[in-house]
């Protein structure tokens, strides 16, 4: 299943499979906790549908769909 | 007459004191390079970056 995080809807969960992004963005996302196998859950979307709020490793984080689209999920 | 002189001196002193105070504070501010709006640099709670704890 080749799904990316921006395709999740509210309440859905997934596990990170890979991050397909240029070095700096990838590093940044991984530093924030998005490593292989970690679980993410979508909490909600902003009033205009973007950015999205997710939980990862027990804390809340928001990122734009553009960033979320580089996070591939299992 | 004396009262007039004293009165004048009093008022003049008040004015000069206020002016001297104002100038001295401004000179001190200039030296400290402090924010003229928030006026203090020490313990600067007026840091714009504080809420995000991250300054670019």
């Amino acid at each position, binding site marked *: 299943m080749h799904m990316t995080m921006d395709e999740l809807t509210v309440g859905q969960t997934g596990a990170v499979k890979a991050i397909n992004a240029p070095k700096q963005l990838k590093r940044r996302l991984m530093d924030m906790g998005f490593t292989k196998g970690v679980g993410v859950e979508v909490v909600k979307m902003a*009033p205009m549908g973007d950015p999205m709020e997710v939980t990862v490793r027990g804390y809340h984080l928001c990122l734009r769909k553009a960033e979320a689209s580089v996070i591939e999920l299992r | 007459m004396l009262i007039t002189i004293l009165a004048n001196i009093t008022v003049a002193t008040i004015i000069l004191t206020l002016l001297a105070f104002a100038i001295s504070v401004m000179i001190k501010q200039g030296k400290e390079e402090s924010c003229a709006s928030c006026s203090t640099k020490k313990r600067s709670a007026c840091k714009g970056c504080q809420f995000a704890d991250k300054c670019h």
Partner: protein
Amino acid sequence: MQTLALIGNPNCGKTTLFNLLTGTSAYVGNWPGVTVEKKEGMTNGHRILDLPGIYSLSPYSPEEKLSRRYILDEQPDLIIDVIDATNLERSLYLTNQLAELGRPLLLVLNMEDLLEKEGITIDAKRLSQMTGAPVVQISASKGTGIEALQAQIEKSLSEKKLPLCPLFSNFVERYISEIIGDDYLHQIPKGRQMRWAAIKLIEADELFLSSMPAPPPAFKTYIEKARKELEAHFEDDPEAIIIDQRYKVAEHIAKDCQIKKKTKKGFEFDSIATHRFAAIPLFLAIMAGVFYLSIGLVGGYTTPLLEELFAFLGEQVHLIADRFGVFPLLSGILADGIIAGVGAVLTFVPQLFVLFLLLSILEDCGYMARIAFIMDRMMRTLGLSGKSIIPLVIGTGCTVPAIMSSRTIEHQKQRELTVIVTPFIPCGAKMPVFALMLTYFFPGKWFIAPMIYLLGIVAVVVTGLLARALDRHKETNAFILELPRYQLPSPRNTWLQTRERTLGFIQKAGTIILLSSVIIYLLSSYSFTLQAVDAEQSMLAMLGKLIAPIFAPLGFGFWQASVALLTGIAAKESIVSTLSVTIGTANLGALFTSDSALSYMTFILLSSPCIAAISAMFKELGSKRKLLYAVLWQTGFAYLAALLVRLIVLLTL
């Protein structure tokens, strides 16, 4: 004297702790060459540094590079890692990296007061065992555990014990050992640890590589082979592999040391704060509430009282002075210069105090991150970032901290645009003149006041859209923002921040405005031949009339208005004090009309800010050229907008 370095993730309460430990000794400076703030202070006879909040020590962002370089080169005697106890796992990721730097480490579990509420228990002893660093539990906001912390700091400073380095999987460790075994690493700069250096080589860390001589070809080949083998084994690039390994260690420690119970979630403010439909109306309501409470409620009550007080004071001075034969010049300076001018500004202290207080609470409670989240999409259409909304909100109090808060926007163009539009939002200093004009020309028409804010927002939007249309590149930066827990801001911090900003306002009144009022009074009372004259023939009038004609199309082409605007460069509050001295607050109607009053307000609203804000702009924009463009744009836009406003009013009323 020993040096302590305070480090930790953003939002971990590090700054609150820093303030607690340093008392009044802290000051802010600058790291040479970077725009990151340097916060230093003294605690217990030691020097302590508050490093920027970071998630990692990657070689990419200025804050991370700075922190890493500081620890390696300056060699602080103790690193104090502040950890949000409710976020242990993620926090340990940084901790692991700190442990490899070879400096004594002390772990502080902050926010212990929240552990019970979130159903978390942490075995501090076990954590200490697994990391090899002492652990102290505190609550910086509640002030608990601080003495124990200070005692442990002393202990750690004398023991100088190094923490344990996290160990990775055997497969990775093998390569690390082999690299350490090679002679190349004997050339590492002072203060670096071999293990750390080996890991940097595997990661191909640019910052580290640039500090080393080129490796001999055989070694270089080995490293590349190692990286390839790692890549093949883990199916990921070496840098990612190391990050992954670190997080695995963090997970392992967290699993061993903490127990999380499922707690019943109480009402969460975010259910409405970021609600799809309610979020933005709520934001507008909160802002409206802030202004209503400060300017409407408190201001409405105190302003008339204080105005009367100062008017009375001025009268009394004249009466008493005349009785005793004081020279009219002296009594004039005191009553019509100082008291009138400064009084006009001090009248607004109560409402600004409340405004600063409410904004401070808003800034510290965590809501700002939500605002950035909900407004991001909208802001992006303006060429700004969601984070740009924060300077705009802070700008309603004072433009200077607002401009500084734009530093959190990483994208340079967006940041610069934010800096340029932030002054469009009416700041506290502009309020006196607005209030004056409104009560004089539009009594009872309270709805005009919100329209001033609206006008500022329109200016922001127009500028943003224009900038976006002209921007050919249209690239945006990543927007990744942690939503911190909501918290009641510490009363102490809130009080300090509010007090500082209010005192700043009062101090401005007692200095710049005092001086300018006296000067204005003198200049408007004498001609160039130093004869006492009517204001119209005074030096000031002659000077003012040189510039005044520029503003004739806007309706305020009389010298008093121009002179007031000029004094506004020093501080916007001066405008109202100058008008008080030159025209008198009771006689505005003699020169202004309702349409020219509105265009005057528009011009003041949108034209370039005071000198303090301009220098803040300069600091953020970095170049004189950009600053010039900014000032020209703001002032030009102000002129056109004022003209437009005047035309609309003349045509409709």
